[in-house]
């Protein structure tokens, strides 16, 4: 599996990568610090996107909108501090496939990824 991890925090990208390993997902990881960089790195080889919401230059929601508008249906998992119900609903409406609220555990990543990858 090849995962694109998008978060403006380098430490958080490292933690998500560690979570993927602990969740027993053997994967190649590509990293991006914002939505613009993520769009540039999103190609057909990416199996799943793990996406923060609040980032400089282009946030997670705009990344989803542009990705879906281009016809790309890659599974997208939000991993964000935005935990209010209306924010979760907004992300899912725009085209996110799953949602994890920080702080997260490796078990939560495993459970949620299993859901969206089987879908």
């Amino acid at each position, binding site marked *: 599996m090849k995962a694109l991890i998008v978060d403006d*925090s*380098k*430490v*958080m990208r*490292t*933690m998500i990568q*560690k979570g993927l390993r602990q969740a027993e997902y053997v994967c190649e990881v590509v990293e991006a610090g914002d939505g613009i960089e993520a769009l540039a790195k999103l190609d057909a080889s990416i199996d799943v996107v793990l996406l923060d919401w609040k980032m400089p230059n282009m946030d997670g929601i705009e990344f989803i909108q542009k990705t879906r508008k281009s016809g790309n249906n890659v599974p997208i998992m939000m991993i*964000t*501090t*935005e*935990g*209010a119900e209306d924010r979760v609903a907004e992300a899912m409406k725009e085209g996110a496939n799953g949602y994890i*609220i*920080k*702080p*997260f*555990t490796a078990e939560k990543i495993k459970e949620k990824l299993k859901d969206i990858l089987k879908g």
Partner: protein
Amino acid sequence: MLDRALMIDTVKKTTNNLFIKMLSMELIAGEPITEKNALPLTAHVTAVIGFAGYYRGGMGIYLPRALALKMVAAMLGVPVDQVTIDKMPADVKDAIGEIVNIIAGGAKAELSKQGITFDLSLPTVIVGEKFQVYVDNNPERVQAVIPFTAGEDQLFVECNIEKTNK
């Protein structure tokens, strides 16, 4: 409706949640400080974040050096003796800033269920010692400093919120 007990409970809950889930550390909360006072906190790494919107205020987390280094090491997945503030200031700033962002984000989500809504600023991280945090008795504002114990280390989380005219 906003009251001090709700804010304190929320901050305790979201702080504990982060330390358990992401750092595998157990915290013990102490008695919150709510009276007007100037608190000489023993902290070396501090991260603050602002609230703005229908409610405004902010949150700060005050960490002793040893605990800050343990937290950064846990987040990066490296031994604590490989982490130094002087040699990796960007990682320390990034990690501790993310900590306050996650705690405040959890509080924001919890309080929004009670109609207390605000947006978060970007976090600011400060390295330095010997400063004071003031708790005032502004009747419009609820404020508290909550001490926590993590093993042999003590940290503080300060939070203040008040309604705006929006």
